[in-house]
């Protein structure tokens, strides 16, 4: 599956395309399929996302998207060396999801 990511223009936060708008949580990401280029062009032009791009992902055991590359998984969660600053500071399994 292809999912879309980028950064929020004002805050720089990593965001994911959920089919309607941009979410902070990769769990919300949906398969953009053949619409990836069109969505990115529209959203970039409207300044709703900065530096957007499409990445490969695969459904995890829960059916939600898990980016194929470790770089995007770290983007999705946060720095592995500062779990307190990630999106899931209390989840002991978060690191396993990344690596």
């Amino acid at each position, binding site marked *: 599956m292809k999912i879309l990511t980028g950064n929020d223009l004002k*805050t*720089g936060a990593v965001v994911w395309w959920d089919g309607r708008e941009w979410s902070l949580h990769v769990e919300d990401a949906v398969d953009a399929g053949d619409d990836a280029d069109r969505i990115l062009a529209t959203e*970039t032009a409207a300044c709703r996302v*900065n530096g957007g791009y499409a990445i490969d992902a695969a459904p995890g055991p829960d059916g939600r998207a898990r980016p194929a*590359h470790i*770089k995007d998984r*770290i983007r999705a969660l946060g720095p592995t*060396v*500062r779990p307190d600053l990630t999106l899931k500071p209390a989840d002991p399994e978060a690191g396993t999801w990344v690596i």
Partner: protein
Amino acid sequence: MYKYDNYDQAMVDARVEEFRDQTRRRIEGHLTDDQFKPLRLKNGLYLQLHAYMLRVAIPYGTFNSVQMRKLADIARRYDRGYGHFTTRQNIQYNWIKLEEAPDLLAELATVEMHAIQTSGESIRNVSADQYAGAAADEICDSRPWAEVIRQMTTFMPEFSYLPRKFKIALIASQEDRAALRWHDFAIRIVKNEAGETGFECYAGGGMGRTPILAVKVADFVPPTQILSYLEAVLRVWNRNARRDNIHKQRMKILVHELGEAEFIRQVEAEFAHILTLDHDFPQAEFDRVAAYFAPPAWETGLSDEIDRSDPDFALWVDSQVVAHKAPGYAIANISLKPVGGIPGDISAEQMDLVADLADKYSFGEIRATHAQNLVLPHVRKSDLPALWAELNAAGLGEANLDLVTDIIACPGLDYCSLANARSIPVAQKIAERFADPARQRDLGELKIKISGCINACGHHHAGHIGILGVDRKGTENYQLLLGGSGAEDASHAKIVGPGFDEAGIVDALERAVEHYRTVREPGERFLDTYRRVGMDGFKEAIYG
């Protein structure tokens, strides 16, 4: 240290307002990302893996307690409570919001700081010996010259759109504490037989995907002509650089492709031409700048004795304290490498403490080192026990300067959008493996440097042991290198063989270290042994 005059302050303030307007136009959609990117980069604002990152310049690594408190304040108000000292004596923040960046820059300007030319194709922050102005072995304070070069290279129109970045370093001692020959242009201040001061110049060094050591291009440039000489070097590069290929644009490639002799010939021709224009800076202007770097009011008649009755304190002194030029004083290094910590990271609370300690013990002066540590340059020896006690209580009392746990590491894939592999977890695992202080001291000087990609921000080419993280089909992999140095015996490290995974690289490194212990001769550092016995024995020990 240097104080802004009205022109400096007006320029920095104007730049903040210019960036505020650029940011507003970007947020309102009047500028595209492609249009805005070079503008934000000229103000040190990157877009990294998780957020915007701001790199703040600390010219030649010198700053003061007021500035450190402001950096702490910024860490709390605009970031997430910490900062990261870099391998170019700067500090960067990892969680900056674009909409707040202009306000942050305005805050920095109130303490004579900025982020100008910390990114992009520009002349970057000038780096220097972190002990300048205090070191017992320097022939003069190199910082007035660094400041003159900073002023010359800031906003210089001719060099605003260089082929690539350009890094300058300078020192005034035989010991090289600034990785001189790894810079595009470097200066060692020397004295000739007549006792006159001059500049020995090097050009064409750099790390990245093509590591090259700078070559000596001038033996003795008179001080008042150094800006003209630098201008000539920049002009030859700017004129001839390979702008068609991003990987061949650095000056090291030009020096390599032209050949040392032809490069020097062109520089000297350009230099001779510039000298005819008679626009070198006047001595009076240098004297004006140099006056800001007058030594602090060191007390006289102080004792050189240090009470070493506390064994832990004695270990810290042996590791962290360096000879000062003034009797009764010492240079104190503050380690930002606690075992298990993140190299170069410092919390806002620790920043405030260091500022307080600088006021209390070091005339308010602080230095940042390219090895990602801090320095209090002017501490009375009699104050060292109290300083150590306060540092220790705050987790800043590690005694590991230049030891196996004093690791340089770039932010790597945990923060950097260019990285291929994480650097910090590898540094942490190595530090934990070698945490025993006695083992560290037994191994002696051993500089480990880790980069998460070929750009080499972690200086892996210059490591006694270097580690390079690469991407192997989506998996982190680490190459081991041996034999590099960033010091006066500069050399670039060589890859040992096939790479390792994250756990394997720590084991491989330990096997290399144990081989050193087995074959070393008395007094030999790891690097000395490697140079004496060569790669083969290490390779066999590592791979079996």
